[in-house]
């Protein structure tokens, strides 16, 4: 059995509730059973247990974490534990006074997501009006002297506007711009046919991001995450399964990644039933793909296995039905054709199909 490493980051998904309905949301489409959200005391316990386990950063995310009325208390608890506390938000429900209070309680940094620089396109992707409020939220972050990350999920309809996203992030005074190509899981998999960009468009976007990163070095970090559908190489999902990041879902399920609970062949445990350290170290779900013993060929003997860890287990499960298979994004996967077909199919059908908007996860 591979000994458990120590996690550095806790992703605390405080809620699956969200005023936005983004068509690429990474929350699960379905869950095995809809259970109530953890209460304040339970979340405080999670933070304490995570800190004891070695966690030094916490990302308060969701859903929309601002919908939790106890967010201030949780930020204070995390801060008292000396955790670097990041708020990952749409910005939409933010009020200036509330942000000031969160900063007073020790919030270290804020990430605001943007769907687009065009209000109409942003509305089409999020299902609701968002742009004005986001711009206001981001401005407050800077006014209160908190570091700002601008996050943009890239897809077919906005990938050509990378230069506009760079200009937006500069104008807002962001420390960091994350240009993250969509990963096709959750709602993004439902909408894949409308979202996958062309290879040519990605190359243009990548060049623009690279030029911006060069020009802005030392002022703003520009991160461009290549889409695994187009690299023919798998992404090192979560930095490896149960290796450095632990996710706790709104209902208390402890997970190696946001989507892991959708892998039907695995079972996971709740922080309400068992200490986080025990779950991290010993539970079957976390052990399943930790280390390399689980790997099949071609991963098992691949020289990249310590770089990409065999890719994304959720993608292997959702596209191939086998969570232990080589990620089909990899050119070495015998089933790589599955990804090629989706990619080329999307490239041929330029017209967008009807979009499926995100809802709160339904019970299977």
């Amino acid at each position, binding site marked *: 059995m591979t000994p458990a490493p120590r996690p550095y980051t806790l992703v605390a998904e405080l809620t699956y509730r969200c005023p936005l309905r983004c068509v690429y949301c990474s929350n699960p489409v379905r869950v095995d059973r809809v259970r109530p959200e953890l209460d304040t005391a339970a979340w405080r316990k999670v933070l304490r247990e995570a800190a004891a386990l070695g966690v030094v950063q916490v990302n308060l995310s969701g859903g929309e974490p601002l919908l939790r009325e106890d967010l201030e208390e949780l930020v204070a608890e995390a801060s008292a534990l000396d955790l670097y506390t990041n708020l990952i938000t749409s910005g939409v429900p933010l009020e200036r006074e509330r942000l000031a209070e969160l900063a007073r309680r020790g919030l270290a940094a804020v990430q605001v997501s943007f769907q687009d620089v065009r209000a109409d396109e942003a509305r089409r992707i999020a299902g609701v009006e968002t742009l004005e409020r986001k711009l206001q939220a981001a401005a407050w972050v800077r006014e209160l002297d908190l*570091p700002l990350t601008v996050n943009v999920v890239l897809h077919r309809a906005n990938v050509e506007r990378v230069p506009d996203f760079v200009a937006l992030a500069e104008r807002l005074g962001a420390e960091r711009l994350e240009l993250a190509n969509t990963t096709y899981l959750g709602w993004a998999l439902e909408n894949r046919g409308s979202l996958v960009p062309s290879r040519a468009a990605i190359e243009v976007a990548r060049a623009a991001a690279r030029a911006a990163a060069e020009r802005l070095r030392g002022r703003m970090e520009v991160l461009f995450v290549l889409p695994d559908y187009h690299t023919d190489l798998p992404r090192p999902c979560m930095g490896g399964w149960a290796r450095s990041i632990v996710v706790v879902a709104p209902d208390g399920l402890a997970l190696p990644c946001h989507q892991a609970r959708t892998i039907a062949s695995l079972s996971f445990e709740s922080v309400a039933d068992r200490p986080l350290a025990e779950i991290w170290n010993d539970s079957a779900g976390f052990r399943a793909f930790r280390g390399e013993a689980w790997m099949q060929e071609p991963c098992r003997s691949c020289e990249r296995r310590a770089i990409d860890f065999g890719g994304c287990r959720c993608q292997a499960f959702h596209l191939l039905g086998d969570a232990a298979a080589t990620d089909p994004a990899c050119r070495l996967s015998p089933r790589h054709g599955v990804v090629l077909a989706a990619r080329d199919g999307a490239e041929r059908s330029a017209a967008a199909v009807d979009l499926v908007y995100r809802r709160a996860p339904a019970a299977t």
Partner: protein
Amino acid sequence: MISLDARPRLAPKARLRKDEKTGETLLLYPERGLSLNATGAEILSLCDGERCVREIIAALAERHGEHASLADDVREFLTKLADRNLLRGTDVP
């Protein structure tokens, strides 16, 4: 490379803390972190916005003795941090 006349200090977003698991110093910033060895932690402890890089190098040489690559090592380390936007006071030509 960072100028010898720059007077670097940590950017407000960066926080230093001890790693209770390893005893090392961690440099944390939004959604990221670096584990510093003893030398890196010592260099950063000298980055107070008052001392210039030349003085930081001299202070280290005095404490630990001169060695051929000391100046380059310190400047390389600080340049890496500056490229990640983790330092202030570095925009000296």
